[in-house]
């Protein structure tokens, strides 16, 4: 992106691995990207491609004893990965906030929702008076569209529907007016009608608060709705980073081609075979050598043996600002990407 300001978030050579009984799981493998103020960036990829682990690292949530994290994550100039516990606590919830996938389990079942929103505010405003906290909580509940908030402030999470709970989680996330909101599949567990409500809400709150949104999803429809920039992940790597229009109209990676082709979209011509990516994602314990996608890639023969032996680096392709990690030449990537039949 052509942006001269400093990024609000800069992820540099992030690697996260987990020691398990079967071996080392390389969940995130050398990922770098920048995010700028006010932007909406979507991260897509199949289940297990490392999206949640990556997102968790930004707030240093993968603190389990089996996890190893390397690289740098700069928020406000502070490297989250090496900062003190106290510094990280200052960032969590106030600079960077997070929404989780399952609104059913993300709220503490033992406390009223009013208490839970208040708690998030009070940690970062220790001097706030009771009255002030109460007003902030009510205002937040109104902002996220919870009807009759005075009545519902003393209710427990199980008394709310899934969509309402996700609104409460959003209220908790935004109560301190964070610079960055990380939403990890915030609508995956919800119905389409509720998903539409929640996405609308997030976008309108973004306008109001001006925060940056990092939205993780596996639904390309959601990407088409809200993204400016898109990062496509595969097996712990970024395989493509593009502007949303570029991704949908001239994607520059064979995996993106497959992903876009396999979506059954109701507007498109129905019936007839969907394009499929053969096989299934690789095990993160023993990734294929070279390009991790090569066993499933129909183009891997196009560049000699490189795909099987050399891991492709993310590089600029074309003039749209797209970046792709593929051994195919720019010309091939662009011409196939623009073509209607990418398979």
């Amino acid at each position: 992106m052509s942006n001269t300001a400093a990024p609000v978030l800069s992820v540099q050579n992030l690697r996260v691995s987990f020691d398990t009984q079967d071996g080392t799981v390389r969940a995130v493998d050398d990922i770098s990207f920048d995010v700028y103020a006010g932007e909406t960036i979507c991260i897509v990829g199949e289940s297990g491609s490392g999206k949640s682990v990556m997102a968790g690292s930004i707030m240093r949530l993968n603190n389990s004893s089996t996890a190893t994290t390397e690289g740098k994550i700069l928020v406000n100039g502070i490297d989250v990965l090496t900062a003190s516990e106290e510094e990280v606590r200052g960032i969590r919830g106030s600079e960077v906030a997070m929404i989780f996938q399952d609104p059913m389990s993300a709220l503490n079942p033992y406390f009223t929702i009013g208490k839970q929103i208040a708690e998030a505010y009070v940690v970062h405003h220790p001097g706030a008076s009771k009255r002030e906290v109460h007003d902030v909580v009510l205002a937040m509940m109104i902002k996220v569209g919870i009807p009759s908030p005075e009545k519902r402030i003393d209710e427990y999470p199980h008394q709310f529907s899934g969509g309402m709970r996700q609104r409460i989680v959003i209220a908790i996330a935004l109560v301190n007016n964070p610079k960055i909101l990380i939403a990890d599949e915030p609508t995956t567990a919800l119905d389409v009608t509720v998903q539409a409500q929640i996405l609308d809400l997030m976008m309108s709150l973004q306008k109001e608060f001006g925060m940056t949104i990092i939205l993780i999803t596996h639904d390309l429809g959601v990407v088409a709705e809200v993204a400016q920039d898109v990062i496509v992940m595969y097996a712990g790597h970024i395989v493509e980073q593009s502007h949303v229009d570029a991704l949908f109209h001239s994607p520059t990676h064979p995996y993106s081609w497959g992903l876009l082709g396999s979506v059954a979209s109701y507007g498109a011509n129905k019936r007839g075979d969907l394009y499929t990516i053969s096989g299934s994602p690789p095990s993160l314990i023993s990734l294929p050598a070279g390009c991790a996608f090569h066993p499933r890639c129909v183009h891997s023969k196009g560049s000699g043996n490189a795909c099987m032996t050399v891991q492709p680096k993310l590089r600029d392709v074309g003039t749209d600002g797209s970046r792709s990690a593929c051994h195919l030449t720019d010309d091939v990537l662009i011409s196939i990407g623009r073509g209607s039949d990418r398979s």
Partner: protein
Amino acid sequence: MSSDVALQAVDLVKHFPTGSKGLLGRPDKSVRAVDGVSFTLRKGKTLGIVGESGCGKSTLARVVTRLIEPTSGNILLDGVDITKTSGKDLRNMRRQMQMIFQDPVSSLNPRHSVGQIIAMPLRVQGLLDEEHSNERVKELMKLVGLNPEHFNRYPHEFSGGQRQRIGIARSLALNPTVIVADEPVSALDVSVQAQILNLLERLQSDLGLSMIFIAHDLSVVRHIADDVAVMYLGKIVEIGPAEEVYASPAHPYTKALLSAVPIHDPSERGGPGRIRLQGDVPSPIDPPSGCRFRTRCWKATDLCGAVEPPLQAEASGRVVACHFPEETPVSIGKSPE
């Protein structure tokens, strides 16, 4: 009844007793999960059933396959009422109608090999001896795109998509004529989803199956279904050829549902006429009077609260349960089915 009907449901009802109990612990309320549903499944065709979570899709599927007993109503399989069958007839019926489940992990017994899992229906029905069933299993595995040599492996050695293929192979073991698939691809990644959808389509045309396909993903249903039924709170609010329902939804709920589906191309952003439903689906324990959708409907009047609109063919030929269906071009010129 014409012979091109594979399965017909007539006014099916399923209530689950629930609610706070009296002193003696008898439930005093019921969840009206399926509350008067009728439809026909055409031979060799796919009927898609869509609707939000909790609207009764899975319950309907389980009632239709008689995994649970309906509270009332009838199910006609090939013109024969199977609601009251038992014993041998029920076994026969089970052979003709099979179910595919959503969760490929939990629907397979982890301690049985794939071969045993796929052969289970054959054994239960006492149809084949060991040797022949092995052959049949391998044949089925090939049919669904699994390597037949893997028949000794266990479910955990397969990926999600492959496990769903195992589930499909198992359901095909008895040569059923009707398949009821409850969210068969919801748990899968898009790239794998596409594989399974292609497989189901291929099997259907090769084997001439009739299929009920349940999903909450409207795009997937659009892709695979010939007819589509839209459910809301235990009732069908609209049913008809998928083409028509998707192109010009007649029920306000269908319209809202379709317009909530994310666009498939960023250039369509901010397109006109998107409808945003307010609020949530009411409780099926105590559904609204009259039209159940009225609490969220922008067209609702007093009539909607007083009189329940029946599911019936409009002048345009569309089958809708609404007092004020969306205007549809009458020129489609189809006679009511």
